[in-house]
Structure formats: structure tokens, C-alpha cells
């Protein structure tokens, strides 16, 4: 029983880390640009498919694929922000949401056209393909690696936002964009930068997910964006700390739910999301 619980925990944490990578970019973009990006899951999906393609057809090393895939997604993100999203900032909320929703449709179909509608089997990672014995049972090394990556990314983000000068600029623009513009911050360029960086985070999650999920499908973006929405809502829209904790909560909740009450695991997730929205719309882990 104990060993089973340990493994359910570990599985939940590693699943939560992928949601965290998507949710971190989502919440960062929302905090600065005030746009909730439905297409953020599509960046995750694109990151995965591109990484896979580099591995399979360019024959590169897995780690090079993890580097290159998200970089291509950055270019996609750049064009999306620069030529589409930028024009809808002054508009009402529905138009912003629907623009990003339109991008979901477009990305999904493009992936189907390029890579086919069926699912694709993915490779294992040399060096991290084995498993170790934890509490008397085998656990994949790669999942342990993922559990380490999540907090590292969180630490990196924290250091960037709190300790570096451009982190301060990002925070300034997030709290008051007119004021930031008035003291000389180039807000449009900053928006582009934050959006591209957010896209990179999500695509990194996707690329790292390639050996983890085993099968790539066009639905993977839509599945994770909903989880990421739940996470950023629970953590408080715009809060990175909240997103990290929220991702852990959702990962664990899903993992335990699937183990013990498999018919209700999805239901529980959305109950939690609705409850937080109703009683603490600023987020469960927000300071005030």
C-alpha cells in the first residue's frame, strides 16, 4: 500500500511538471499581456512534433531536438504576436479569446496536414531510458529527470523575474503598463518578448514530453491547455508561484483520482477549478 502510494505521488508530480511548463508560460503571458492564450497548448503540441521530427528525420541527438524544436516554436510565437495578437489588444475580451481559439483550430489542422491525423510512436532517450527501484518498485529514470526539471525552471524564472533587470521591467509592465511606457519601457517589444518566451516554455514542455507520453496525437495540445487553465485559475491568474503549486495539486489530484476513483477524476478537477473561481477568484495561493 505504501509503495503504491509513493508511486502514485511520483506519477502525479511528474505529470504535474508538464502542466507546470505549459501553465508557467500561460500565466506569465496573462500577467503581462492580459491575454488568455487558448493556443498555448498548441505550442506544447508543436514543440513535441517538431522535436520528434528533428530526432526522426534530421537524426539529431534528443537533447539537440529539445533545443531546436522549441526554437522553431518561438518563431511561430513571434509571428503570431507580432502580426495577429498585437492588433486585438485594444479590443474586448471575446475577440482576444476567439483569436487564440482560431489559432488552435489552425495549428491542429496544420499538424494533421503535415504529420497525419494518426498518433505517432516516439523514441526513448539514451541514458535516461532505464528505471530505478523506489520503495520496492521500478520507476522510470526519465520521469525522475522531469521531476527535477520542473523546479529548476521555476527557480530560473524566479531568478529572472526577481533578480535581473529585465525581470524587473517585466514585473513593472505587468503591474502598470502605462506607467512602464511613460518611464521609457518599449512595451510592444516587451510584449513580443514575453509572448515568445512563454511559447518557448510551453514548447519545451512538449519537447520533453516526447519520450514521456510515448504517443503524439493532435489532441495533446487541447488536453493540456484545459489542465493548464485549471492550474492558472487555481494558482491565481498571473501568479507563477500559484501556477507551480497548482500544477502539483492537479497532477497529484489526477494521479490519485485515476488510482482510487477513476470514474470521477476529471470531474474532481473541474469541481476544484469552479470552487476556487467562486470563493477565491484571485487564486488559492495568491498572497492577497
Amino acid at each position, binding site marked *: 500500500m505504501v509503495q503504491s502510494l509513493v508511486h502514485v505521488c511520483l506519477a502525479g508530480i511528474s505529470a504535474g511538471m508538464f502542466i507546470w511548463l505549459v501553465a508557467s508560460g500561460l500565466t506569465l503571458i496573462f500577467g503581462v499581456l492580459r491575454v*488568455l492564450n487558448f493556443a498555448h497548448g498548441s505550442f506544447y503540441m508543436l514543440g513535441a512534433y517538431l522535436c520528434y521530427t528533428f530526432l526522426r528525420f534530421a537524426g539529431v541527438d534528443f537533447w539537440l531536438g529539445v533545443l531546436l524544436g522549441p526554437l522553431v516554436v518561438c518563431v511561430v510565437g513571434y509571428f503570431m504576436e507580432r502580426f*495577429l495578437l498585437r*492588433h*486585438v489588444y485594444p*479590443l474586448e*475580451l*471575446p*475577440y482576444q*479569446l*476567439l*483569436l487564440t*481559439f*482560431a*489559432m*488552435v*483550430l*489552425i495549428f*491542429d*489542422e*496544420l499538424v*494533421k*496536414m503535415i504529420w497525419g491525423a494518426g498518433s505517432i510512436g516516439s523514441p526513448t532517450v539514451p541514458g535516461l531510458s532505464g528505471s530505478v527501484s523506489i520503495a520496492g518498485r521500478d520507476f522510470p529514470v526519465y520521469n525522475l529527470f522531469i521531476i527535477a526539471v520542473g523546479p529548476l525552471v521555476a527557480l530560473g524564472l524566479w531568478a529572472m523575474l526577481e533578480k535581473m533587470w529585465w525581470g524587473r521591467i517585466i514585473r513593472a509592465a505587468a503591474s502598470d503598463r502605462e506607467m512602464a511606457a511613460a518611464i521609457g519601457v518599449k512595451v510592444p517589444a516587451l510584449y513580443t518578448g514575453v509572448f515568445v518566451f512563454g511559447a518557448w516554455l510551453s514548447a519545451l514542455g512538449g519537447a520533453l514530453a516526447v519520450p514521456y507520453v510515448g504517443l503524439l496525437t493532435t489532441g495533446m495540445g*487541447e488536453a493540456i491547455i*484545459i489542465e493548464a*487553465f*485549471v492550474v492558472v*485559475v487555481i494558482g491565481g*491568474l498571473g501568479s507563477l508561484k500559484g501556477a507551480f503549486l497548482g500544477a502539483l495539486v492537479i497532477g497529484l489530484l489526477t494521479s490519485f483520482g485515476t488510482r482510487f476513483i477513476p*470514474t*470521477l477524476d*476529471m*470531474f474532481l478537477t*473541474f*469541481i476544484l*477549478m*469552479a470552487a476556487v*473561481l*467562486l470563493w477565491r*477568484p484571485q487564486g488559492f495561493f495568491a498572497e492577497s
Partner: protein
Amino acid sequence: MNRSWTYILAALGIAVLIGIGLFSSRFILYLTMRVMILSIFAMGYNILFGRTGLLSFGHAAFYATGAYGVALCTIHVHSHPVLAVVAGVIAAAVMALIIGFFCVRHTEIYFAMLTLAFGMMVFSLMWNVRGITGGDDGLSGIIRAPISLGLISIPIMKDSQYYFFVLMFFVVSVLLIHRIGRSPFGLVLASIRENHVRTEFAGLPVKRYRLAAFVISGAFAGLAGGLAVFLESNVTPFAAHWSRSADPVLVSLMGGLQTFSGPLVGSVLFVVLRELIERFTHNWMLWFGLILLAIIMGFRGGIVGSTAALLKRSSEQG
């Protein structure tokens, strides 16, 4: 447009629809029914979205509730179609009342997220409560029994007969929604959209009005779902999935948000374009994404709004 023109147009529209019902091929009949069902869904939805200014991402849940209500009523209770449709609409309205009670506490992005969460709850219930809903297989083989009215009974088994059943509900819905738009109630909803603080200061219970708009739009969504079940003879949980909630938004946007006939025109475009695009390519969603993008970037009034603006501009110049 003045009043008499509206009547003439409406009469012409009904005449054309009756003509289609009497003389068309089965394929055209089927498409027209789909247009009418989607119109009911979108026009009802637009009471909440275009009128009250609330963007819901959970209305597929009410559509699906109506659909399951009709299916379950037909299978377990009584096969009378009118009874089933009424049961479906009531089920959807009750569901909308419960969910709306919580959702109207927020607006804007929080409202959208709440409706998304509740919608997905409904989806997951339909997916998981296998004993009642049939799980991911859904319910199938729902038959259209004749409408018995005491002594006589009207068969609606054939598509050409069922068409008039849908047409009747369509006309009634259009009239009702038109009436709601012109009523004091409808005007209050518009004032909430324009400025909810001032509406509140005028002494109106804004939340209650929002809830009423939510329930009405949910009921119409349920009606659309119920009619769709009889048309397709089956229903699956995917009818409640959040991505399906985007359909009425798309339709309203294509036609024009703040116009009465916008969702109607949008529905025709949606169904016809989809049919046309699907003939040439499997990737019709790609084209819809591009169309949606074009509307948001360039034609935010939709077809009806943009055309009206164009007419107005040319008449001002001339």
C-alpha cells in the same frame, strides 16, 4: 429597416422554408434542418453573448443536456416527441439555472472560465455515468414516434415530415427571441452589457437579469440539442465538450454580434460553408480558423453588421 419590410421579409423567409420542405431533396432537407437547429442554438446563445455581453464557454453542456433529456425521455418514459422535447428543454433550463446561479457572480474572463469548468463537469459526468448515458458510446437508435393528438396522430418518421416539426419550433423560437429583444427585459440586458454599474445604480438586480438571460439561452440550447437528437437519432458526450461551445460563438460572430438576424445568417454560412469545404478537403477546421481570424482582424461586425455599415455609409454619402 421599417416595420412593414420586416414583416414582408419574415413572410418570404417562411414561404421559402415551407417551399424547401415540400419540394426539396433529402439532402437539402437535412442541411436546412441543421441550419435551423444551429440557428436556434446560436440565437439563444446570442441573448447572453451579443445582448448581455457575457462570453460562455459552456453552452455545449446545455445543448447536450437537452439532447440527453430527449433521448432518455424517449427511451425510458414515453416516446411522444413533443413530450420528449419539452422534457429536454426543461432539463436544460434547470441545468442552466443551477450552473448559472454560480456563474453570474463573475463577468469577463472569470465568467468564461467558470462556464468552461461547469461545462466540462457536465461533459465528464456524461462520459463516466455509463449506466445512464451509455458512456463514450452515447445513446443511439432514438426513433421518431408519431405525434399523437388524441384522435389523430401525425407521423414524423420521414425527414420530409420531421422537417415541419423542426420548422415549427424554429419559427416559434425566432418569434420568441425577437420578442425578448424588443421587450423591456431585453433592453435591460443591453444596458447591462453597455454599463452594468449604471444599471445597478438604476435599481435593477443585475445578477438576476444575467441569470435570467443565462437560463433562457440555456433552454434554447437544450431545444436545439433535443431537435438534433431526433435528426441524427444518436447523441454522444462530445456534444458537451468545450470545443463545441465555440460553435454558437463562431456563428454569432460570422453573422454579426449585435444584430438580430446575425446568428441566422451565420448559421446558414456555417452549415453551407462546411458542406462546401468538406467536399474539397478534410481540413475544414483549418478554413474555419482562417475565416474566424479574418472576421476578428477585419470584419468585426460580421456579415450583417458589415453590410449594414456599408449601406449606411453609402446612403450618407449619396
